[in-house]
């Protein structure tokens, strides 16, 4: 797919595996009454942690640490943009390694396989190919909402921001951001300690052959899809916007800031130290990765 695009050979490309595994059903987002949503967002004093290249295991652990700290009131509600320092496959909490990944191919291609704390599907990540962020909020922000409504709520500002970039985007329950040009991204949530973690990955550009060499995408997963070619279902944002990745991320955070307020922040040394301990004790262990072999 790189032929003729003018990208340098070996350019970093990435994709969202879920984008391949799930086609967005054309369900209207406005199945929910959004009238109270802005007030829920504005009731909090939001912090922004910008993305820096980060090891995949540390990304997993930071999500847990920041969720618990927001739950305990030790950190204000936070939007964290992710950075990556290498290729990675991020498995959902309940996925089986063997069913999802060709581990030999992953090792050959320098792809680190990790497991996150939220459910959902595998993501195939290359550092410049994905746009990922996490929202950490007290569970009260979604009080009275069903789980499906809370998914739509947490990604509603992104859908609005994408529309401002000219992407005809909408939310497709349960957990997809999709568009007229194809699926854009997928979200997952974890809840613990009185806080919600909602994280979303969007495809910026995809290396489908590399992704398919590492991920196993079985026929059953595609059984309710009308299309057999994985590539057709995804609408990576580079292709849809012709904007640099950093420009899109900047627009997303600007939109959040203008809508709900956002104060620049960073992870504290203490938070990083706690996350590094969790990498050693849990996320980096075989017991965690092979929880479901």
């Amino acid at each position, binding site marked *: 797919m790189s032929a003729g695009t003018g990208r340098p050979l070996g350019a970093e490309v990435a994709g969202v595996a*879920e984008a391949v*595994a799930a086609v967005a*059903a054309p369900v209207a987002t406005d199945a929910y009454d959004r009238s109270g949503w802005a007030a829920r967002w504005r009731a909090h004093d939001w912090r922004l942690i910008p993305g820096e290249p980060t090891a995949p295991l540390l990304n997993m652990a930071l999500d847990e640490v920041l969720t618990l700290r927001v739950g305990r009131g030790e950190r204000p509600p936070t939007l964290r943009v992710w950075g990556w320092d290498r290729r990675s496959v991020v498995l*959902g*909490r*309940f*996925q*089986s390694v063997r*069913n999802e990944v060709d581990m030999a191919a992953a090792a050959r291609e320098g792809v680190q396989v990790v497991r996150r*704390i*939220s*459910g*959902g*599907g*595998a993501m195939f990540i290359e550092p410049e190919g994905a746009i990922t962020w996490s929202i950490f909020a007290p569970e009260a922000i979604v009080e009275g909402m069903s*789980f*499906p409504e809370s998914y739509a709520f947490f990604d509603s500002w992104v859908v609005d921001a994408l529309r401002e970039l000219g992407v005809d985007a909408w939310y497709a329950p*349960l*957990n997809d951001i999709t568009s007229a040009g194809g699926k854009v991204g997928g979200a*997952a*949530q*974890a*809840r*613990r300690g009185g806080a919600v973690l909602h994280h979303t990955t969007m495809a910026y550009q995809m290396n489908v052959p590399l992704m398919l060499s590492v991920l196993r995408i*079985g026929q*059953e*997963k595609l*059984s*309710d899809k009308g299309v057999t070619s994985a590539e057709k279902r995804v609408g990576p944002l580079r292709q849809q916007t012709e904007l640099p990745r950093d420009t899109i991320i900047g627009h997303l955070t600007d939109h959040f800031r203008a809508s709900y307020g956002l104060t620049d922040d960073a992870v504290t040394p203490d938070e990083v130290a706690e996350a590094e301990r969790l990498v050693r004790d849990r996320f980096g262990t075989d017991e965690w990765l092979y929880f*479901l*072999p």
Partner: protein
Amino acid sequence: MHGEYKTPGGKLVVVDFDQAEGKLTGVRVSGDFFLYPDEAHADLAKALNGLSVELSEGEIANTVRLGLRRDAELLGTSPEAIAAAIRRGLAAADRRPGQADGAPSSRIEL
């Protein structure tokens, strides 16, 4: 044994298991579904291990539903989908008698 079921418009559930003396053993339920809280995942294997392979899909589904803790939220898949994956795994094993781990050849469909 291995069975999969993709809920139309939803998520994939995969069940890997063995069988011994007509019962499910070593059951592992995986997939890209969502389940809250995390600990409820253990309820699935607990409900399924030891079940007779002769139970109907509906009986398996009801057992899973009753085995899940009261506050569990299963999204994208369902007890029915898990039961369907198990039935498919058993059916596939029956079609490969050499690999069926002693599955009775005259298993009765209820």
